[in-house]
């Protein structure tokens, strides 16, 4: 049976269910209790589970993320909420120097079964200290697992497998998605190791995740009207990347466009394209391309913010350019037929 709900409600239901199911699970973060969560994700949970398990913290990201690690080592299953990815920078030390390193550094003695959730992304005119997309940066770190639910179903289904994972899992929720409505089944859990094909197509693979999935799907629809049939892959897991799903698609379409709200230099999009080149270079008909955010801090005024971010129009334009040769091929039946292996 499937139910219609918002992304926010899906997250809340997933947490409620986890809290009911496992007495080791508790939640902590800034304003998660009485306030109900800065994005209202945990609204009502304090009343249902009490202040021991829905624990308001002071403004101490370094302190309470580090405490989450210790609590996980001590046998609990903490869900730590950080208001936004920008604030998570105050907790980089415990996340990277401890959570990510501890198991390897201790010779396999100490795993850190902690889940950290945070909002990411731009689009709400919140300017340069509340709008960045730094999840790709975290995906650089061995020892962390990075998830980016882009649908209501994933918002609902990723938390439980993340809590069952013995290692630290960071879940990035694009702030524009909280009001997204969608269908989700009852207790559907998601495979948190695999990317998912959200739209099948044969001409071009659009690779994206999180807040830009909707834009990529809208672009695919527009492109379909022009005769460009896009396959849209939702990465879902930013670390470890699901190379198998990516390469299977790229080898089919022979063209890849990465859409990422992160910056392009030294980025997740760079990593994905490098992997495509390393593993599937000879299958490609065109150089891979990407649509990323402008290399600036995200500005406040709407027109500049919009210009800084990937948009349906910029995705469509990049896709068209990438498929230029492809469309020429289609217009030239003789050339197209002459190529072997098509």
């Amino acid at each position, binding site marked *: 049976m499937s139910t219609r709900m918002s992304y926010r409600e899906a997250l809340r239901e997933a947490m409620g269910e986890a809290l009911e199911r496992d007495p080791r699970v*508790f939640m902590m973060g800034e304003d998660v209790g009485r306030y109900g969560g800065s994005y209202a994700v945990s609204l009502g949970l304090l009343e249902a589970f009490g202040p*021991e398990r829905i624990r308001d*913290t*002071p403004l*101490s990201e*370094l*302190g*309470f*993320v*580090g*405490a*989450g*690690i*210790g*609590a*996980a*080592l*001590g*046998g*609990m299953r*903490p869900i730590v909420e950080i208001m936004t990815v920008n604030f998570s920078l105050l907790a980089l*030390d*415990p996340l990277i*120097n*401890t959570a990510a390193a501890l*198991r*390897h*550094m*201790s*010779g*396999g*003695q*100490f*795993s850190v079964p902690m889940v950290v959730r945070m909002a990411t992304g731009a689009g709400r005119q919140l300017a340069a200290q509340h709008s960045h997309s730094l999840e790709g940066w975290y995906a650089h770190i*061995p*020892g962390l*697992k990075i998830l980016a639910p882009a649908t209501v179903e994933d918002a609902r289904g990723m938390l439980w497998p993340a809590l069952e994972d*013995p*290692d630290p899992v960071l879940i990035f929720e694009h702030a524009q998605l909280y009001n997204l409505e969608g269908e989700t089944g009852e207790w559907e859990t998601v495979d948190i190791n695999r990317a998912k094909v959200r739209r099948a197509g044969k001409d071009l693979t659009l690779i994206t995740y999180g807040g830009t999935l909707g834009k990529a799907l809208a672009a695919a629809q527009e492109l379909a009207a022009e005769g460009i049939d896009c396959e849209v892959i939702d990465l879902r897991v930013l670390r470890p990347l699901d190379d198998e799903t990516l390469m299977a698609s790229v080898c089919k379409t022979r063209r890849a466009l990465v859409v990422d709200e992160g910056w392009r230099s030294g980025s997740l999009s760079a990593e994905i394209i490098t992997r495509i080149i390393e593993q599937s270079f000879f299958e490609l008909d065109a150089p891979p391309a990407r649509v990323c955010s402008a290399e600036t801090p995200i500005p406040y005024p709407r027109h500049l913010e919009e210009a800084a971010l990937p948009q349906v129009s910029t995705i469509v334009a990049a896709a068209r350019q990438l498929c230029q040769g492809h469309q020429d091929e289609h217009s030239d039946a003789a050339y197209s037929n002459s190529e072997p292996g098509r």
Partner: protein
Amino acid sequence: MSFPPRTQDIALDVLRDMVRIRRLEERAGELYGEGKIRGFLHLYIGEEAVAVGVLHALAADDAVVATYREHGHALIKGVSINAIMAEMYGRQEGCSRGRGGSMHLFDAGTRFFGGNAIVAGGLPLTVGLALAERMQGGSRVSVCFFGEGAMAEGAFHESINLAALWQLPMLFCCENNLYAMGTALDRSQSQTDLCAKASAYKVDARAVDGMDVIAVHEAACDAVEHIRAGRGPFFLECRTYRFRAHSMFDPQLYRDKDEVEQWKARGPIHAYSTRLKAEGLLDEPGFLAILSQVDAEVEAAVTYAENGSLEPLEDLSRDVYTPRAAS
């Protein structure tokens, strides 16, 4: 002068444990010179009374988190001396499979949670251990050792606030050796009364002579009683001194030789063994017997480490993630 009742029974164990740390550290320093131990090596020589006094006040299943100057804490917590030495040698028989080295000793079996080389990094971790204990209804205490330098870090202030706010069963054990690497306390912190900082967070605090193992032990026993009675966290400042350089690369330009000599005259092992003799609890042959037993233990550990093996290269990426059964 007489012994407090709590110390009477362990009077000689305490001496032996300080000597064990001293000889382990001296030997480690020599092995560093021989190139057997590499990386950073931070010796605890001079500060032995702190780890020994505090750890003898704990139960075996209490949790301990320490710094990168932690060989002594690991040893007295019960981590095998062989595994400690093998770890410094980078051998897979080490307590962290040789992956951590001197700064990252870990041992799940004795609840020794490192070996943290980020100054103040162990503090939030210990808050979490104490929180987990409280939420699970246990009575174990979580202890974090840190230097006075850590008290300039935000992590200290965030952690003590959390511990006090949530009334957690945690002992903050500050090893005040007066220098954060080479920077003296009064050159780096506006408030040099460390207990006043803890008191500002409404945490009960006490300073003790960290060169006097009995004074440390008495204070630590009181602190642990306070914590187990559910009266919240406790801050214990142990005033001590590092006799050796910060690490093996430190020419010690920042302190006078006279100052070092004055502190050495108050050396914790010398002071305590003198006291034991005055009390009639120890004589010179007895002391020499302890020294030779400890030397044999340390040499056996060196032999163990020498005979250790290197982790195979194919295991390099093992345990970046926890292995999981195929589903």
